[in-house]
């Protein structure tokens, strides 16, 4: 029997969804698909495998360590998609080039990352998201944020927070002190690693005024509401960083029209994992889940890497993380109800089939017994299978 040992195992970082888990997942995905469609976003599906070179275009080298790679018959390197933004950028730059702009696309897909599994994230996990191509306006960014918030609400979450930042603010601040490229990279790396101790040590080594040092050290701590954003203007000494703050103020003003500004807090030190972001960036958090639920931002150069200069903004949310958060917070998942178990006595098959048809037409979920049963058996089965109601044809 030794050789059979592995037949029940599945690879590291993958999981099965049992019926009730799959139902929860499907229900959330359905809600999100409906929402995206309501907002005029059209769904696209891209291949699970892409050429490695396409997926890594415009991304940092470290990304390569986290991709599942394989070879095709001509020995070209393929990889499983690790996110959906890059494949959609490729798609838009090739086959949708002549589509009228702005283009609004959505997806619900599995993505793959070779890494230590985390809470609510295996190596294979599921994302729902949207991409809005062809607009540089703050209105586009506000729409993306408002839609992300609606998505979390529609999933059933109540308590969450969006942290909103702007990568050009950080770049502008570093620019205004004329830091050498090497120093900038080191400071950014420290911030990406969330290492504020290292950031302080690095800043102390720079030949800057005490005031400049204090500003750089403060970057990861610029978190707050509108008042914090206003006070950040005191730190912004050049056009680049001021324009980033203007952009955030404008997005926030528009979010008020959507009536969702209470979910949003500014975080000027926010760092996202992907290097393609060029403007506003955000992450969503919820209590009891140690990892972000959702993230996104503006990426105006990624499409030009595919030869089709076009500004873009979007977000992706983790389905498993949303499910986990709902469970942790004891919230109702938008699951489809199991309504009726339909059983019957011998000789009543035809009536049972007809009855099931009528009930299903009314929108009920109906499981039809496959063999005649007596009432007691039928009740037992109904309860074991978790149906709310029994319909029995005697």
């Amino acid at each position, binding site marked *: 029997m030794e050789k059979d040992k592995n037949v029940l195992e599945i690879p590291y970082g993958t999981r099965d969804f049992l019926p009730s888990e799959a139902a929860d997942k499907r229900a959330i995905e359905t809600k999100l698909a409906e929402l995206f469609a309501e907002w005029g976003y059209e769904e696209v599906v891209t291949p699970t495998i892409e050429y490695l070179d396409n997926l890594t275009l415009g991304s940092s080298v470290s990304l390569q360590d986290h991709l599942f790679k394989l070879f095709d018959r001509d020995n070209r390197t393929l990889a499983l998609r690790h996110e959906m933004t890059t494949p959609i950028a490729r798609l838009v730059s090739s086959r949708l080039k002549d589509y009228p702009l702005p283009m609004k696309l959505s997806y619900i897909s599995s993505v793959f990352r070779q890494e230590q599994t985390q809470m609510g994230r295996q190596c294979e996990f599921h994302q729902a998201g949207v991409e809005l191509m062809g607009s540089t306006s703050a209105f586009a960014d506000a729409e993306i944020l408002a839609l992300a918030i609606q998505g979390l609400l529609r999933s059933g979450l109540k308590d969450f927070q969006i942290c909103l930042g702007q990568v050009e603010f950080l770049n502008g601040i570093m620019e205004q002190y004329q830091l050498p490229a090497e120093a900038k990279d080191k400071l950014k790396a420290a911030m990406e690693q969330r290492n504020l*101790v290292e950031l302080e040590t690095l800043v102390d080594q720079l030949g800057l005024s005490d005031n400049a040092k204090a500003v750089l050290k403060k970057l990861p701590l610029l978190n707050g509401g509108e008042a914090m954003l206003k006070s950040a203007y005191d730190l912004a000494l050049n056009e680049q960083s001021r324009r980033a703050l203007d952009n955030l103020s404008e997005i926030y003003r528009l979010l008020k029209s959507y009536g969702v500004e209470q979910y949003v807090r500014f975080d000027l030190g926010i760092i996202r994992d992907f290097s393609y972001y060029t403007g506003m960036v955000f992450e969503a958090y919820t209590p009891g889940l140690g990892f972000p639920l959702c993230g996104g931002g503006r990426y105006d150069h990624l499409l030009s890497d595919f030869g089709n200069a076009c500004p873009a903004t979007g977000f992706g949310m983790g389905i498993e993380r949303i499910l986990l958060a709902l469970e942790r917070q004891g919230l109702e998942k938008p699951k489809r109800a199991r309504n009726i178990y339909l059983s019957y006595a011998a000789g009543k098959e035809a009536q049972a089939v007809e009855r099931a048809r009528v009930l299903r037409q009314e929108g009920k979920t109906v499981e039809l017994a496959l063999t005649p049963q007596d009432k007691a058996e039928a009740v037992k089965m109904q309860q074991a299978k978790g149906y709310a109601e029994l319909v029995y044809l005697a």
Partner: protein
Amino acid sequence: MQSTSMDYLTIALPKGKLFGLSADLLAKIGYTAEGLSDKSRKLIITNEEKKIKFIVSKTADVPTYVEYGAADLGVIGKDVLLESGKDVYELLDLGFGRCHLMMAVPKDEKRAKLLDYNHTRVATKFPHIAEQFFNRHGMQMEYIKLNGSIELGPIVGLSESIVDIVETGTTLRENGLEEIVSIQDATARLIANRVSFKMKFDRIHTMISDLRTILESEAAAK
């Protein structure tokens, strides 16, 4: 059981030598709880009035509790943090628990330079840090993970060298070992979960400022 409550701030403290120092420092900013001790049988100690929970855990587990958000904050040595590779905010250098990570070899068999140890065996409790260090020097080593008494490695012929932390160097000397290269200095750090740091920002930010004030006044007094 993870707290989804926003009311409490949960802090993971490591058992052992950092425990007392951490508890003392936190007490100075009012972060304490009745019966807080690493000898306590209770693993979670709560201060209801100040809405603080302490988790007392094994040292190596502190970064894990914090990464997953089971604790919002933690105190941990930089050595253990680096080895764990966990994705957490490193907020503050607390200054105590100073030690340094280094490579040591038997005094009598010392080789001329670091590269002469290429492709040899190294015994260590910190295989990740050691590997990163040797990789940076273009060296390939055979790593032997031990959980304690690392100094024994070269003495019994298990390895040619060790990578370990030292505080005073007494143990090294007593076992005929000599430090040949320093890898990293380490002190205790205040770490935070990446989501807690954002969602409980105001409270954590105040706490950092208070701790800074204490640390600076202590440094000035020395």
